[in-house]
């Protein structure tokens, strides 16, 4: 709840603290944990964006699908340090739970926007 009440400012980069925690899993980098996790996140996020795009163009968006994506992205984005996306997911999830019948377009758009930003950050990170 704290995440939704107090959204952090959007940043183009990934949260340094989260990245540190990832690095801790593979301190000397021998196993390329950070790279592998970011790669997995990137491909997973790209797939979800495709699904979200489809929902955005659907006549009636499927709340279950949107909620599922928000739930999944919430923890994986937090893990890689895409905190803004993580907050957005938590926010969407909460809103859908509090008001299940609502129109989903703003939420889908919000998720797509945040995802695009996160994707850019991850790709930039991977490139570096």
């Amino acid at each position: 709840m704290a995440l939704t009440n107090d959204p952090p400012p959007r940043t183009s980069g990934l949260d340094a603290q989260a990245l540190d925690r990832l690095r801790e899993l593979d301190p000397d980098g021998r196993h390329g944990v950070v790279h592998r996790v970011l790669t997995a996140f990137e491909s997973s996020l790209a797939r979800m964006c495709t699904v979200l795009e489809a929902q955005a163009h659907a006549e009636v968006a499927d709340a279950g699908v949107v909620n599922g994506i928000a739930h999944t992205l919430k923890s994986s984005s937090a893990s890689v340090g895409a905190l803004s996306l993580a907050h957005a997911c938590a926010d969407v999830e909460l809103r859908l739970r509090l008001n299940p019948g609502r129109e989903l377009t703003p939420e889908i758009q919000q998720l797509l926007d945040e995802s695009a930003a996160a994707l850019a950050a991850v790709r930039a990170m991977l490139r570096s």
Partner: protein
Amino acid sequence: MTKPEVIADPATGEATGQASGHPFGAGSQPGGPQVLLVDDDEVNLLLTSFALGERGFRVTAAGSGAQALVSLVEQAPDIIVLDALMPEMDGFQTCREIRGTPGYENVPILILTGLDDDASIARAYDAGATDFYVKAPQWSLLGGRLHYLLRASRTRIELERSKAKLARAQDLARMGSFEWRRLSGSGLTMSQEALRVLGLGTQETVSVRTLVRMVNKDERRVLLRQLHGALRRASTLTTDVSLLLLDGRQRIIHVEAEPEFNERGQGAGYSGIVQDVTERRVAEDKIRQLANFDALTGLPNRRQLLWRAERALEQARRMHHLCALLLIDLDRFKIINDTLGHGAGDELLVEVGRRLRSCVRHSDQVMDGAAETLGLRFHRALEAVGRLGGDEFVALLPEVADEADAQRVAQRVLDSLREPIFVSGQECFVTASVGVALFPRDGNTVVDLLRNSDVAMYSAKSQGKNSSAVYSPTLAGRGRAKLELETALHKAIERDELVLHYQPKIDVHGAKMAGAEALMRWQRGGKLVPPCDFIPLAEETGLIVPLSEWALREAAKQARVWKDKVGFADSIAVNMPSRLFERSDLVEHIHQCVTAVNVPHRVIQLEITEDNLMKELQNVIPALHRLNEIGVEISIDDFGTGYSSLAYLTTLPISELKIDRSFVRDLGITPQSSAVVTAIIALARSLGLRVVAEGVETLRQMEVLHRLGCGLMQGFLFSRAVPSAELLNWLEQTVLPRRAPWIAVARTGQSPSELQGPAPSRRTH
């Protein structure tokens, strides 16, 4: 382990094995716990795999519930971690499926939920999850939780195993446990094993009331008293109860329970065990029966008797009263056993036992703890007749008023045997000799009392049997002397202490010796023991057999010596007890004795008393025939005193009758004597038998006998029994020179004035 192994791509569902090539978790130990990690999000799956691998877990990753179920078949995870929210089959459903898979009923399952997802927590437990965990990137917390769950699971498995072991052990021991709470519904909880012990279904609930109703009626009151007593004192309860189970079986159940207390120290209930001890009790009873009771008569045996006697003496000491021990020995039981067989002997003992126990206030059982229950009257319950062994019984009278009291019971015992006993279709008359010893007068210990009642019993026997005798110290002295005598007699043969003395048989008419009778003497420590002092003992102990065999050997040797010295060609008569005739080797033994010294068989003549012969007639006849065939003559001793069947006499292979000395002694004094002698002589003559008169001491007796037609005599008139050397002297100095007064009388046929016999004896001539 070591490396996370992603078995399928979480997004595509295709098997990838992508993580398997990575040497993740280099720090983890091989053989760490196997985790099945299930999450639809690839990023989380990877991260969690790495994190757990780093912490020593071997991780198998599955991207969906369906894949997780597949992997269960191939792997056997120690623990399963499920993400709660997954598309299609979510974590809860997966959890349920896993729980339904055989072998996974108890595997720890952890469900990962979101922080703000209270509903999932409840659902997780509903689905059978072991625990839930709120997702967080603090991996060490997750690892710790998994270790905790694994340890709890191991503990649980061990507990289950040890429970199963206990259950098995209890089943084997026919044992089960129970708990009883004072203040709760039915109060009683029984383990399945306990229910089985009681023959109840394992699902049944049972109340104390039901159980008490199963207890045999006569024990119920005692049990309830015990239960209430234990409850009141909050003490341990240990008891055996006989139950009639609902299925009709009668069992003995051992109950042992310890009280339990609440925090205020009040008895809150009991916990304990029930055990079926029926077999053990049956076996114990059997052992006790075998150990304490005589198998034949069912009476207390020696051990049980001694135990009772000890208790009786303790009590008598405490309460200052007298106590009596009666030793009852059947007379001539051996004869019954030998003639009718052991089966009949046993039958007889059973009946005797039955009669004897009716002579006292016999108690079969003295229950353990009877001393406490009966208190001062306890010793009365000890009263019994028991069998010491063989034909020996003991009556224990724990309290008698005086000697006369004990004697009355002894008389009752003798009376009880007065009626004949039917065994093997035959009437048997049995008598007993009873020895009485009183505590404390005749002994302070059971051993002393037994010994002294034995002494008294022997005294009763020697006074003609079928009677009782009370112990006195003088009897004991006699008993000891007898014991010493027996020991010494055993050694007499090997020490060459036995000798044969010879009394000549005289042919009065020819004034010559016509044979001799060998008589045994015992030179014991310079004194000559008369035969009447040791022959009965030898017969009683069986020593008579070696003694008689020795006598035969000696007689044969003597015949040889005399033959060489004086041309002895008659026979030496040796006295034989009937039991020797029953020995199959008697003929062979005589054969060896005579051939060893090269004399003919006929030098040995055997004398058997009329009594002995008639008592054992059937057993003796075959031997008589065989002896007769080889030339050994048989003489019947003490003739006229027994009850000979004249019919038998005509057919027996005998050669000689010896008129008993009692008739000879009275010759010329009572007319009956000469009548008997005349009759015997006539009988012998008609049967073609020789007649020898024994105990001839006076010339008058000799003359009368001679006149009546008996020419062969023995007696002090001629010579007493003397050592062989003396006999030769006598022959040389008295007979051959014809110096003895009897020779003159015999030769002249003159009747000395003092020889005038009474008229009747003449009339019989």
